[in-house]
């Protein structure tokens, strides 16, 4: 089943016939059933669905942190199924950013260091790193807090750091898994605004799993999942 015709040409991300099954003890649980999906560059896509509908699984596969049992995943026209773990890691490093529900910041790193980390991994020179990180922290409104560690920040501030970390390398795709789920209403509004504004500014493609209607109204497309199938 497919909600959108899978067309690899001019698409950033193309899933064709992706199936994923998990084994839970003796039982086999299908998480995705022949899912096909095409996401265009710069698109803001929301993925909705009840718990266990397969949202996280599809995010993992789109983010190249998991592999499908069958079907293909193409990023920028390249089939990622042929890549080994090392190559996939390098593709993620250069092309994909992640925003997690639980922020997933490195607790021993300062705000600055957390945001700097992806640039460091990519081998960006120190001077350029400093400049880009400072700019990004200014954009998310945390310029004054760059020396603070995550445990010295509020939930909203942490998520801003996570957004800055995801965007600082200007990836082609950002995978966001319920980015506002752990935040209060006011903070959620700010985070949604920041994500949308910066995403548009940089031209990054967003694939967001969410239940938050404030997010979905800003998205170009809303896809609903049910029992491992795109509606």
């Amino acid at each position, binding site marked *: 089943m497919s909600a959108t015709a899978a067309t690899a040409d001019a698409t950033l991300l193309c899933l064709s016939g992706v199936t994923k099954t998990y084994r839970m003890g003796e039982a086999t649980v299908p998480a995705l059933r022949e899912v096909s999906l095409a996401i265009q560059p710069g698109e803001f896509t929301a993925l909705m669905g009840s718990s266990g509908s397969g949202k996280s699984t599809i995010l993992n596969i789109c983010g190249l942190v998991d592999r499908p049992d069958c079907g293909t995943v193409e990023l920028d026209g390249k089939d990622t199924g042929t890549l080994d773990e090392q190559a996939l890691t390098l593709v993620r490093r250069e092309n994909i950013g992640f925003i*997690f529900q639980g922020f997933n910041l490195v607790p021993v790193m300062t705000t600055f260091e957390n945001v700097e980390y992806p640039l460091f991994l990519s081998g960006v020179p120190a001077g350029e790193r400093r400049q880009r990180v400072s700019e990004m922290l200014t954009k998310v409104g945390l310029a004054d807090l760059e020396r603070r560690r995550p445990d010295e920040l509020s939930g909203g501030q942490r998520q801003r750091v996570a957004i800055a970390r995801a965007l600082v390398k200007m990836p082609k795709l950002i995978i966001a898994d319920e980015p506002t789920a752990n935040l209060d209403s006011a903070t959620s509004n700010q985070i949604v605004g920041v994500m949308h504004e910066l995403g548009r500014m940089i031209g990054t493609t967003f694939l967001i799993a969410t239940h938050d209607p404030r997010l979905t109204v800003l998205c170009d497309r809303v896809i609903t999942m049910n029992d491992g199938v795109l509606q």
Partner: protein
Amino acid sequence: MKWLIFAGKNILRNRRRSLITVLITAVGTAGILISGGFALFTYESLQEMAARDSGHLIVAHKNFFTSDEDTPMQYGLDNAAEMRKRLEQDSGVRMALPRVQFSGLLSNGDKSSVFVGMGVDPAGEFYTKGPALTVASGTTLSAAPKADAPAEIMLGTELARQMKAVPGTLLTLLSTTTNGSLNALDVTVCGTVSTGVPDVDKRLVYVNIATAQHLLVTDRVSTLSVYLKDTGQTDVMRTQVAAQFPLQTVQTWRDQAYYYEAVRSLYNRIFGLLGIVIVVMVGFAISNTLTMAVVERTREIGTLRALGTLPQQIVGVFVLEGMILGGAGSLCGMLTALSTTFIFLFADFQMPPPPGRSVGYPLQINFSPSLYLLTTLVLVLLSVTAAWFVSRKMAAKPIVEALTHV
């Protein structure tokens, strides 16, 4: 550098745990260095004692060490004076001392006792013996005895006690001559000595070499003991002297130092086992610390992997953490061992007498740069290996599993 800073920050996450690991490593390192230093001091002391006793090289008749003599001095050296002169011409030789080994009975008129005697050149002999021989009473043998005076004798303290002899006491030496007949000689006790080994002191007799030769009716000597300027040159000089005197046999002090070899062998086993136990203990401590760190940081590892960190980079951070923990522990241990070495150097701590000896010896710890370097290398390598071992599986864990770890 970034990775090193990251590793350092990770270590400081759980300061108490890291501190305990560093302390365990430090105690282990200090334990190895102190016990190893003590063993080295013991080896060095025993080596010096053995070399002082026998000489670095012992030149003797080719059958001297392998066959029993039919008559005294059968396998003695002729022309010892000439050989001595040739040996002492070598710049590596400090001195060559002739010795006559003999045995017999010592009598005070009322009772007799068996003795094991040594005819020596007093000028060199008591100089080379140094602290290995303690003069308990009287004086050592005269280097140039008067022709009309009775021959001098030095007795072991225990033998002197048995014979009720003090300096000035007249005794009689009775021994078998080289032709098999008995000969007796009156001697005057000039002093008593102690080797620190009661069994030796019960039988020990020193006389001038001329006295011994007169008693045995010979001009031969049993051996020539060669004292070198550098103990490290023993093997080289042995080859050289053996080539110089092809008809004789040459042994080194090590060939004669049965006690040294036995103690060394025993200590090597004891301290080797102790070292292994300490290394295993430190290995477990570091593994435990890093295993806990790896498990606690599973989710973070998943995040870092998702962001594009390679598994080997994750392992690399843990290896650096292991290296820092092991290095810091080793450094603290080295400082502790060094401080202990200095304290023992200036404080007069005495060890009790070893079995078979009557005097104790100072407790000192040698400083050996190679031991320090080797210990540090082993412990750091162990820490690095433990870190690699505990982190490699987690770094290769599927990212999704790591991210959902609770």
